[in-house]
């Protein structure tokens, strides 16, 4: 990985972190409503995977989708405005936190139905295959989705059609409150790839370099017509399932132990130790992102509400 890419990943991780922290503050101040599922702690996955994608590559995302959207090119202002239901949001205030999409950037959308986005990314991969380009698609989903039938149907179909699709599973150990040990028959979700005759690999989802190694391999395979792959990234969400989650199912010690494995901090230490960037340079990026986030917040707060007279717009395309 070259220096430029590493700095891009670092900046995206910071954007996601600051965005999520700000969203939580705004939620606590009642500036945003609805279901808000924060991605803090998982930033390395979205940033590293998307660092290898083009605008013509597609992704589909999940209910915990802000990170994927930002990494795939969403601007912070319209993303936050969407979460506030404003007219300037990505979906004109119709979609909210769980449905941010930007098809022009290849983001086929966050998806509030667990597993629901996976066949949609498959359709994007199919479109790219049929157009004969080497563009690909990535389906992001969580550990919980791997117990949905649609995900298994999609893995089988992707393999049968040899589609340029990468299944990226973020295993953050809990489906809402239920630990994977209670819900999932296998410890490593990547072994499920065997059933569909595709490569499967489990990596440390808090480590940019491990994710990078796996995704580079999978992307090369997909772009060259080699077909789909499954990558499981073991990670952890620092916040509850949603912003109001009482989190009775896990201990403070457990959360603390994962916070010590912060993906951003880890990548910072790596870059400084390898002299890829100095602490000051990284601090500067962080400060730039804070300024960017302040502007995004101002934009979202000052944006107008959608006009109720437009509520029926876009049910159909005319």
């Amino acid at each position: 990985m070259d220096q430029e890419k590493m700095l891009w990943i670092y900046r995206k991780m910071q954007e996601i972190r600051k965005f999520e922290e700000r969203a939580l503050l705004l939620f606590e101040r009642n500036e945003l409503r609805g279901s808000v599922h924060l991605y803090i702690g998982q930033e390395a996955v979205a940033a590293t995977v998307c660092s290898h994608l083009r605008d013509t590559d597609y992704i589909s995302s999940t209910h915990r989708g802000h990170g994927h959207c930002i990494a795939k090119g969403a601007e912070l202002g319209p993303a936050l405005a969407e979460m506030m239901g404003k007219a300037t949001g990505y979906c004109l205030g119709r979609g909210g936190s769980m449905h941010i999409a930007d098809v022009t950037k290849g983001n086929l959308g966050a998806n509030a139905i667990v597993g629901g986005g996976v066949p949609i990314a498959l359709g994007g991969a199919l479109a790219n295959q049929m157009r004969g380009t080497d563009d690909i698609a990535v389906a992001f989903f969580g550990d919980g989705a791997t117990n949905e039938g649609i995900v298994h149907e999609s893995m089988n179909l992707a393999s049968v059609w040899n589609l340029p699709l990468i299944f990226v599973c973020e295993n953050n150990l809990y489906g809402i409150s239920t630990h994977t040990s209670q819900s999932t028959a296998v410890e490593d979700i990547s072994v499920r790839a065997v059933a569909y005759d595709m490569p499967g690999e489990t990596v440390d989802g808090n480590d940019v370099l491990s994710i990078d190694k796996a995704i580079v391999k999978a992307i090369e395979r997909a772009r060259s017509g080699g077909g789909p792959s499954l990558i499981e990234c073991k990670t952890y969400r620092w916040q509850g399932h949603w912003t109001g989650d009482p989190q009775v199912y896990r201990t403070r010690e457990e959360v603390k132990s994962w916070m010590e494995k912060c993906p951003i901090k880890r990548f910072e230490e790596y870059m400084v130790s390898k002299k890829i960037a100095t602490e000051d340079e990284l601090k500067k990026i962080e400060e730039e992102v804070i300024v960017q986030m302040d502007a995004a917040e101002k934009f979202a707060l000052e944006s107008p509400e959608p006009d109720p007279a437009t509520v029926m717009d876009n049910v159909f395309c005319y």
Partner: protein
Amino acid sequence: MSKKSYSVAIRDVIAEEMSRDDRVFIIGEDIAEQGGIFGCTRGLLEQFGEERVRNTPISEAAMIGAGVGASISGMRPIVELMYMDFTFVAMDQILNQAAKIRYMYGGKATLPLVIRGQQGVGRGNAATHSQSVESIFMHFPGLKVVMPSNPGEAAGLLRTAIRDDNPVMFFEHKILYNTQGEVNDDPDFAIPFGEANIVQEGSDVTLIATSQYVNRCKAVAEKLKQDGISVELIDPRTLVPFDTETVIDSVKKTGRAVVVHEAHKTAGPGAEIAAMIMEEAFNYLDAPVLRLGAAACPLPFNLNLENAVVPQEADIESAIKKVLYK
């Protein structure tokens, strides 16, 4: 004009549209070598190759999800379901994804997707393979709902469906596949959605029927003519969008209405149509609007029992006489 069966009319339009537009392709179960179990894709594999005529595994949810994703990504997929009853195993992709994505994304996604297949009674397929399921898709905004009743309309409506930029649910009927009819040969022949067909003009009663009941109602109307009853028969052709104007104008003229369909009467399309007539033409009605649909009973296997559940010609005739107080 050419004389064709309903299934050949459908096949030919798919072939013409695939020739016209490289983005159109078709996926489904047993549609390639086999040509579909009802023959609606026969010969397409030979003409267009396996890239654009794709057999799928028996994975209806993934098929439709693939169609949703490919349509947002710039293609124009047709997904054939062997039985429209199988929409039930793919409901999330149809109702939560296909129907809502355009709206949910603030109009910034376009989904030119056709989900088509056959439904209905008539071949002894019993409860899980004989249903008429269209009303479910009328209920949730975001889908167009099409019910062609003969080969010519199947061709014209399917062409509109394939060229439409919205998701379309296209409900064929299994017993219509072998029926013959005149089909317009113009490769651009298309019937706009939301325009009902006045199959036959009349003055005493408005009879609204869909799919196979259009033909059956035509025979009933012919018979009633001999009794001096003049029936105006309307085929809405599309339930979403619905041509309210044609129906209301007719009811204002006749003062009476009967709605006939094969879907269950309870919360079926007739409930919506009857309520709409009541809301918009109440002062013109000389009798309550009557609805005929399948009884609130799963479709039975035995033919006599099946006939006992869905409306028969005699039921249509007596409903018409009832609104005429005869």
